[in-house]
């Protein structure tokens, strides 16, 4: 008899590792995703139709298949319909779904364990719930719930449905809640003889929900990518708990792989933003500190007209475009590409400066600009573009703010102090496209706008760029 189930799980496990590896290189990334998807399909088929004895149709197959078909149809529609700009919140939402799934599994397993406990046939000398089983169940429940609630909040924040919400001594309260969760979970273990879910069990769920809310609510949008990445790895760990519970290696490997890869990804992002992971974890991120940074607003802002900017750029020899979240919300990537083409036709050297955390996720700008067919080698990463600003005639900042804020270098009191930035102030002229003088995501003023070399072109990024395109054409 062939061990089909084991083979299916093995293919799944290997393809996750290989797929993730391939996703790490631009050339093979898309194939890597397909490899991982294929492995997932194999593992699911193995779980549905085989057990260790061979072919075996699982119980309740009709419910499972209905749920899978519904999930496939709805998931595909959601993923296909979403705008490229809304990608980050979509990822967050799907992540939350994974967390919810893990939490539900734990709830059912807990009921199952209690059920076993009252079964008269069980051997009376065996402990009902061993620690070895209890830990994965309760950990899957707690982590899955936190991940679910946190992801939904992050999703709401990114699409603007939920605002920032802070209150004093947030960190202490968060820490207390975390300790309380562990304490209640421990007490719950003591209750395993009860025939019904005890109060402690519900309390564990409730506190995990509260922690998920508290965890993400105070975090400003600038740190949202970090949070999503972290919640992503949480869900990985929750999935791994299921792997422990069922001694299922594909769940374990997939879950731990995402858990560790996600954590490293989080750390890499934190580094790019010069935040310590600890600060993000206890909810300190988001720049509520500082306070003194508003003192910089002494100077006056110079407003410029589209015509002037168009002339400036047309007769420049080198222009660097700095895209930010403003470009994404305004859906301005296509107009931006059009402007780039026009200028290139005039013999201007046009490049894009990509800050590692521009937009709402690392690589967000690359994805957006690639969508409008901007050539890959025109997107220059920060460390390579920074030396070039000195020889640049015009820098066009499109809806970026914190990533060009000189306070990161000059003002130790600033919450973003120490974050590497794009040195746009080295260029001869700076033009900032912005809707208003409102502060950026970190919630702080930007001295750059008061710089004598800097001109502000107010308005929606797309409308402003369109204006520039028309002006350049008309010249």
């Amino acid at each position: 008899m062939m061990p089909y189930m084991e083979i299916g799980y093995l293919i799944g496990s290997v393809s996750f590792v290989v797929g993730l590896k391939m996703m790490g290189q631009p050339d093979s990334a898309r194939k890597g995703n397909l490899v991982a998807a294929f492995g997932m399909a194999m593992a699911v088929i193995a779980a549905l139709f085989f057990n260790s004895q061979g072919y075996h149709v699982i119980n309740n197959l009709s419910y499972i298949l209905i749920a899978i078909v519904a999930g496939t149809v709805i998931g595909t529609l959601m993923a296909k319909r979403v705008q490229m700009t809304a990608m980050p919140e979509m990822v967050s939402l799907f992540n939350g779904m994974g967390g919810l799934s893990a939490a539900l599994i734990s709830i059912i397993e807990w009921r199952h364990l209690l059920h076993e406990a009252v079964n008269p046939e069980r051997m009376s000398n065996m402990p009902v719930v061993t620690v070895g089983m209890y830990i994965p169940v309760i950990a899957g429940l707690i982590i899955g719930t936190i991940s679910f609630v946190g992801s939904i909040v992050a999703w709401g924040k990114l699409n603007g449905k939920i605002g920032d919400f802070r209150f004093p001594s947030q960190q202490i309260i968060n820490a207390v809640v975390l300790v309380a969760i562990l304490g209640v979970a421990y007490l719950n273990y003591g209750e395993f003889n009860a025939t019904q879910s005890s109060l402690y069990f519900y309390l564990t769920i409730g506190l995990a929900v509260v922690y998920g809310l508290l965890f993400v609510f105070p975090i400003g949008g600038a740190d949202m990518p970090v949070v999503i990445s972290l919640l992503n790895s949480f869900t990985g760990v929750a999935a791994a708990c299921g792997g422990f519970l069922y001694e299922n290696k594909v769940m374990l490997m997939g879950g731990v792989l995402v858990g560790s890869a996600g954590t490293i990804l989080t750390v890499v992002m934190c580094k790019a933003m010069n935040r310590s992971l600890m600060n993000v974890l206890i909810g300190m991120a988001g720049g509520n500190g500082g306070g003194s940074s508003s003192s910089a607003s002494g100077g006056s802002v110079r407003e410029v007209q589209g015509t002037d900017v168009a002339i400036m750029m047309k007769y420049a020899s080198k222009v660097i475009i700095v895209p930010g979240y403003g470009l994404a919300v305004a859906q301005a990537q296509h107009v931006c590409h059009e402007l780039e083409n026009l200028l290139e036709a005039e013999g201007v050297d046009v490049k894009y400066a990509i800050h590692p955390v521009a937009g709402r996720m690392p690589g967000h700008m690359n994805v957006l600009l690639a969508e409008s067919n901007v050539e890959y080698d025109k997107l220059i990463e920060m460390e390579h573009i920074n030396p070039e600003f000195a020889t640049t005639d015009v820098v066009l900042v499109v809806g970026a703010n914190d990533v060009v804020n000189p306070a990161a270098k000059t003002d130790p009191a600033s919450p973003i102090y120490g974050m590497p930035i794009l040195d746009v102030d080295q260029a001869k002229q700076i033009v900032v496209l912005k809707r208003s003088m409102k502060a950026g995501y970190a919630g702080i003023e930007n001295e750059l706008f008061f710089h004598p070399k800097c001109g502000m072109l107010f308005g929606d990024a797309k409308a402003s760029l369109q204006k520039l395109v028309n002006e350049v054409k008309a010249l």
Partner: protein
Amino acid sequence: MEAFFEGIGRLIAQYEQQNILNLIYLVILMIFVGVELISHVPSVLHTPLMSGANAIHGVVLIGAIIVMGNASPDDTLSLVFGTLAVFVGTLNVIGGFVVTDRMLEMFKKKPKGEKAS
């Protein structure tokens, strides 16, 4: 302190009984693999990679299927929760892979990726 180590010892013995110790080795190895895989990736690919990893932890779907397979047909609450778990797990898997594919689709015709950060 001694009690603590004794407790750990008991836990390990229990795990050994349940053949879980092997799994712990697996966990440790996978942690290193995960770290290795991500450490040298250009930041350009961070978003798709996060999204791809997001799809992979959808493997929790397998757990949801197993739990459904174990649920007795007259335990309504378990069936409802289980079906929901399968549904949202599938959303995670399918949505994750499709979104990732859409992101990566845009990287296709670039002239030879240079420089990794």
